[in-house]
């Protein structure tokens, strides 16, 4: 921004504003003053006129009033007066009055009805009652507003006054005054109004009622808008002065006042223009002055600004000259002020600059020379550096190539892909048109071409042996070979279109991994190979070797994995086969058990019968022979049992049946069993039981077996008359039982053989005592199964102590016991694979003929009848004989179907039942019998060939019901039982885990007079059975944790409770296995082979007693 402008503009603006402002103020003020003056003049003008008008109006009114008080008018309206006279009189008066007053237009006399009776106008007889005059004029004097007379057409103002005759209204006198005469004279007087002023009157409707000065014919025609009087107040004293526009749209200054009496507005207008004319002149003068002042002011501003900006410009110019390098430029400013000073300084500065500049120039020249030299040297350096850079770039390319190859090696595990990609890339980076990869075949010691690129068939077909050719040489030497002297017959030729060409260099590099030759890579080149490239190739190929090795390993791994999978598949098949074999083995064992024992039964049984001479006497020899047979038979049985036991143990088929038993009691039992053998040698058995050993939780049967075996051995090897001791102590958590004899002892050597199968130390002795050599092996097996062990401590000549340990608490708990039950179920279910009773069977049953009943000697015909169910004819005969011999009647059935049919038809007293029957097996027979009302109550004795060595048996009648229970059936069964037990008010223990069922059953039988004990789970059932000794139990089989089977087993093992009859309740049909379970524990089981007639008969007797009572 220019300094000049900077000064000029503000200055001018200021001047301008001041002047204009002043101008306007002056103008305004003067205008106001003049206006005031005019208003004042006008106002006084109007005032005087208004009072004049009012005077006139008053005069008119008074005149009229005067008239009406005159007699003439009074008489005129007085009808009592003579008409003509009064008319004449009034007329005269009228005329008189008119003559005297110029202003009067007409005088009319109206009678009280409003009819014109006298007038100077020809209106006599007209009815003017309607016109406003009449009604208004009735009461009092009235001045009507100016109207146009309809007769003369002139504006008139009407005054009226009532005529009273004798105080009564008689008529009205109406006088019309011409407004123009007097009124208008006032309003149209132009004095004081100059040229453009006027005064006029408006009536209440806003119409002009006095003529306008400028416009013709405005009376009662021209409406003037007087906004300022909207109130219509017309109060006296109302005066307004203002500027407005008149009816001619001219700007006027106005005085507005009223004549309240007539509701007239009095307007005095003066043309604003005219009024303010003087102002205008003034304004003009002022304007001219102002204008001149402005011009002068501007000029002055310009000069001032110039005077300042000029020198400054010069200064600025000087600086820019300096800037452009003109050091000679000098300023010439003589303003005498600071700027001059500045300019002088500037000039001095320029001088100085010029001097220093020239100094500088010389210095610069020097420097430049130096720089040029330095630059030349730098150039040389740069050239050197770029050479090094090139080399580096090369190397980088190599590195990139190397890492790319590494990436390929890393990604690929497939040998072919690896070699292919690798070779391609290698050839690319080394600019080789021909390459080949050879793999080393160690078996044939040959290099075999695997991948070729850019080569002819001659290459891909040609193998090299070690040392042969270029590849062979590098392979043998295990080093890179670079050949530049190419033999003519080389197979490494490049084909290009029609001709072949030889490479200039062939490089052959061996792939070595951990000193092992994997192969050789050959590349051919057409140019020179730098050492860098060779180094690069070596690195790459080394890496390659690693990858190739990996690929090879991988391939090997794949092969191995496939092999392993095959092996695994084979193993699976084998294990499946083994499983099948194992299963078969169990079945086999079970079958063999049966098969082996059946004939033995005959051998032993019949021999016994003969021996007992039941059917006749035998001689000494015969008796001896029979005894031989018997002894051999029993021995054989023992062998078979032992073998089967051992087989089972070895096949893992032995399950331990855990229960709680009293150690002392069991030892006593075994002692009892062995006492007969012991007494033959006069050997006594001493038993010592240590403190704290009362109850053992283990397989009782096996325990007894072990002890029995050891005791019989001890007796065998003890000299006569000696003592065999049994000591039982607790060692940590084991019960340790030792059997000591004072026999011949056992050498260390023999001790080793002891527990092995079939090895006997002294076969003579053992033969004599019919040992089998299995005993000790079994002893150890059984002990170890429990988690214990068996061993011997002995010195030759000092006797032997056989020791075995059994955990006191047992390894397993109740859950395992249940598992045992399950397992037993499984085993036994698989054994009995026969069909249950089918419809056809039922038909069969119906059709079976009843065989003969065999009678005992001297039969009375009403002995109890026993149905013997046994498919083996011989065994059947044995049993039958035994029974008839004891005085029972017998009838035989050989199949399950027969058994059911006979039972149904003749309802025997009891049934002996072989489980292994053809057709429907024993379990089905039981089930069938129990489900039939006719037969459910017949006691059944199961005679089983299954492998049960239980020596103890209990015998109770068992029924089982299916829920929902029929009350009557239940009661009748109970009654039967209790009748036989002869108890007055029997207590019944109900055990069921559903409280509702307990209540239901209780309610059913309470009415029968039974006392009820309730238990809601197995444990409670057992506890209450022990505590309260019920006479009967109703037991639910299916309960959680401890189920019905457990309860039965438990109760049967305790002396106090084992004889309580149990009725079993179940919500579902029992399976064969479950029935088996049940009947094992609850129904007498006797084993063929150890068949003891006496015992058997005892059992039958028991039933009789129970039933008979």
């Amino acid at each position, binding site marked *: 921004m220019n300094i000049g402008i900077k000064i000029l503009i503000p200055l001018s603006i200021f001047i301008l504003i001041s002047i204009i402002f002043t101008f306007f103020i002056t103008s305004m003020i003067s205008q106001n003053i003049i206006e005031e003056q005019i208003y004042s003049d006008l106002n006084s003008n109007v005032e005087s006129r208004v009072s004049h008008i009012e005077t006139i109006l008053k005069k008119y009114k008074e005149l009229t009033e005067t008239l009406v008080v005159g007699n003439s008018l009074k008489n005129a309206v007085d009808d009592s007066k003579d008409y003509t006279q009064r008319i004449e009189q009034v007329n005269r008066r009228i005329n008189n009055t008119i003559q005297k007053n110029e202003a009067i237009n007409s005088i009319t006399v109206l009678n009280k009805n409003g009819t014109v009776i006298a007038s100077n106008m020809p209106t006599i007889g007209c009815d003017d009652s309607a016109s406003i005059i009449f009604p208004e004029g009735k009461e009092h004097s009235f001045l009507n507003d100016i109207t146009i007379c309809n007769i003369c057409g002139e504006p008139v103002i009407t005054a009226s006054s009532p005529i009273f005759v004798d105080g009564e209204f008689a008529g009205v006198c109406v006088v019309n005054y011409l407004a123009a005469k007097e009124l208008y004279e006032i309003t149209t007087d132009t004095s004081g109004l100059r040229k453009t002023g006027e005064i006029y009157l408006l009536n209440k409707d806003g119409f002009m009622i006095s003529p306008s000065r400028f416009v013709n014919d405005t009376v009662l025609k021209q409406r003037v808008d007087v906004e300022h009087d909207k109130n219509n107040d017309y109060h006296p004293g109302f005066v307004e002065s203002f500027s407005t526009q008149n009816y001619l749209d001219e700007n006027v200054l106005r005085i507005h006042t009223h004549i309240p009496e007539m509701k007239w507005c009095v307007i005095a207008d003066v043309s604003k223009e005219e009024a303010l004319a003087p102002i205008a002149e003034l304004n003009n003068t002022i304007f001219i002055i102002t204008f001149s002042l402005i011009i002068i002011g501007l000029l002055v501003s310009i000069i001032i600004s110039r005077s300042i900006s000029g020198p400054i410009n010069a200064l600025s110019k000087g600086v820019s000259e300096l800037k452009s390098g003109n050091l000679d430029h000098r300023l010439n400013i003589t303003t005498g002020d600071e700027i001059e000073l500045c300019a002088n300084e500037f000039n001095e500065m320029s001088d100085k600059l010029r001097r220093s500049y020239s100094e500088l120039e010389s210095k610069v020249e020097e420097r430049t020379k130096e720089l040029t030299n330095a630059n030349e040297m730098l150039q040389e350096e740069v050239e050197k550096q770029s050479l090094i850079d090139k080399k580096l770039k090369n190397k980088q390319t190599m590195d990139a190539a190397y890492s790319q190859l590494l990436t390929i090696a890393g990604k690929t595990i497939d040998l072919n892909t690896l070699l292919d990609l690798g070779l391609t890339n290698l050839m690319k980076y080394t600019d080789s048109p021909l390459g080949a990869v050879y793999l080393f075949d160690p078996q044939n010691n040959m290099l075999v071409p695997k991948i070729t690129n850019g080569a002819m068939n001659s290459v891909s077909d040609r193998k090299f042996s070690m040392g042969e050719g270029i590849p062979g040489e590098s392979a043998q030497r295990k080093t890179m070979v670079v050949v530049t002297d190419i033999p003519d017959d080389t197979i490494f030729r490049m084909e290009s279109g029609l001709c072949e060409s030889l490479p200039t260099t062939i490089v052959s590099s061996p792939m070595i991994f951990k000193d092992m030759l994997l192969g050789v890579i050959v590349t051919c080149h057409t140019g020179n190979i730098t050492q860098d490239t060779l180094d690069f190739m070596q690195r790459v190929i080394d890496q390659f070797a690693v990858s190739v090795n990996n690929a090879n390993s991988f391939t090997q791994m794949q092969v191995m994995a496939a092999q392993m999978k095959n092996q695994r598949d084979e193993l699976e098949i084998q294990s499946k086969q083994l499983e099948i074999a194992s299963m078969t083995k169990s079945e086999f064992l079970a079958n063999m058990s049966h098969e082996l024992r059946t004939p033995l039964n005959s051998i032993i049984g019949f021999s016994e019968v003969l021996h007992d001479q039941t059917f006749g006497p035998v001689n000494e020899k015969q008796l001896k022979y029979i005894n031989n047979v018997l002894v051999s038979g029993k021995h054989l049985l023992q062998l078979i049992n032992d073998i089967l036991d051992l087989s089972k143990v070895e096949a893992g088929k032995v399950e331990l049946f855990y229960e709680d038993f009293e150690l002392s009691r069991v030892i006593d039992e075994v002692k009892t069993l062995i006492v007969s053998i012991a007494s033959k040698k006069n050997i006594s058995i001493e038993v010592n039981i240590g403190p704290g050993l009362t109850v053992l939780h283990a397989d009782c049967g096996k325990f007894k077996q072990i002890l029995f075996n050891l005791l019989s051995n001890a007796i065998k090897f003890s000299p006569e008359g000696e003592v065999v001791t049994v000591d039982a102590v607790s060692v940590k958590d084991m019960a340790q039982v030792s059997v000591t004899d004072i026999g011949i002892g056992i050498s260390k050597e023999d001790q080793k053989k002891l527990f092995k199968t079939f090895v006997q130390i002294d076969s*003579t002795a053992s033969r004599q005592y019919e040992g089998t050599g299995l005993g000790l092996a079994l002893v150890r097996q059984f002990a170890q199964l429990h988690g214990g062990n068996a061993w011997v401590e002995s010195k030759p000549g000092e006797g032997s102590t056989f020791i075995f340990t059994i955990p006191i608490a047992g390894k397993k708990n109740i859950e395992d016991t249940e598992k045992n039950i399950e397992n037993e179920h499984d085993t036994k279910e698989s054994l009995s694979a026969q069909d249950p009773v089918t419809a056809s069977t039922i038909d069969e049953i119906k059709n079976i003929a009843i065989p003969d009943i065999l009678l005992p000697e001297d039969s009375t015909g009403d002995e109890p009848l026993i149905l013997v169910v046994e498919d083996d004819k011989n065994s059947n005969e044995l049993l039958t004989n035994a029974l008839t011999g004891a005085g029972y009647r017998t009838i035989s059935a050989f199949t399950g179907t027969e058994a059911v049919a006979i039972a149904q038809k003749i309802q025997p007293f009891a049934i002996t039942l072989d489980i292994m029957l053809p057709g429907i097996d024993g379990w089905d027979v039981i089930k069938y019998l129990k489900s039939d009302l006719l037969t459910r109550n017949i006691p059944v004795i199961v005679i089983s060939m299954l492998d049960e060595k239980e020596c103890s048996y209990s015998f109770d009648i068992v029924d089982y019901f299916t829920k929902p229970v029929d009350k009557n059936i239940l009661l009748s069964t109970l009654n039967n039982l209790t009748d036989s037990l002869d108890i007055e008010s029997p207590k019944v223990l109900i055990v069921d885990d559903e409280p509702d069922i307990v209540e239901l059953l209780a309610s059913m039988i309470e009415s029968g007079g039974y006392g009820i004990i309730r238990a809601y789970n197995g444990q409670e059932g057992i506890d209450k059975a022990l505590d309260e000794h019920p006479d009967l139990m109703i037991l639910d089989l299916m309960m959680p944790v401890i189920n019905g089977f457990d309860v039965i087993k438990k109760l049967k093992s305790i002396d106090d409770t084992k004889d309580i009859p149990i009725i079993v309740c179940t919500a579902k049909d029992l399976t064969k296995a479950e029935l088996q379970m049940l009947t094992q524990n609850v129904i007498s089981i006797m084993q063929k082979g150890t068949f003891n007639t006496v015992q058997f008969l005892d059992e039958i007797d028991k039933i009789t007693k129970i039933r008979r009572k």
Partner: protein
Amino acid sequence: MTHILVVEDNPLNMELISDLLESYGYEVTGANDGEEALEIISGSAFDLILLDMQLPKMDGLEVLENLKSNPATVDITVVALTAHAMKGDEKKFKEAGCSGYIPKPIEVHKLQSAIAQYIGE
């Protein structure tokens, strides 16, 4: 009278065979093991030896060897009594010098004719 030696360790078997042979009219001597047998043989003359091949102390084959290596006894007919009845056994016994074998359990009805046959030889 034909004299037969029965070498058998099981007394019941011994009794059976002895009684049977006696019932056939032969003279029977029993030995319970190999040692005893050899002792008895050295003292008496026998027409036939029935030898149980499974003996305690001295095994049947040992006895046989003994007999066959002794010129005094080499000619005595020896018949093996065996429960083995396995394939290689017959051959083994024959090679050891047995003229034949009688399997156990003994078929009582066939015994007489078998013995007669061996005596006849």
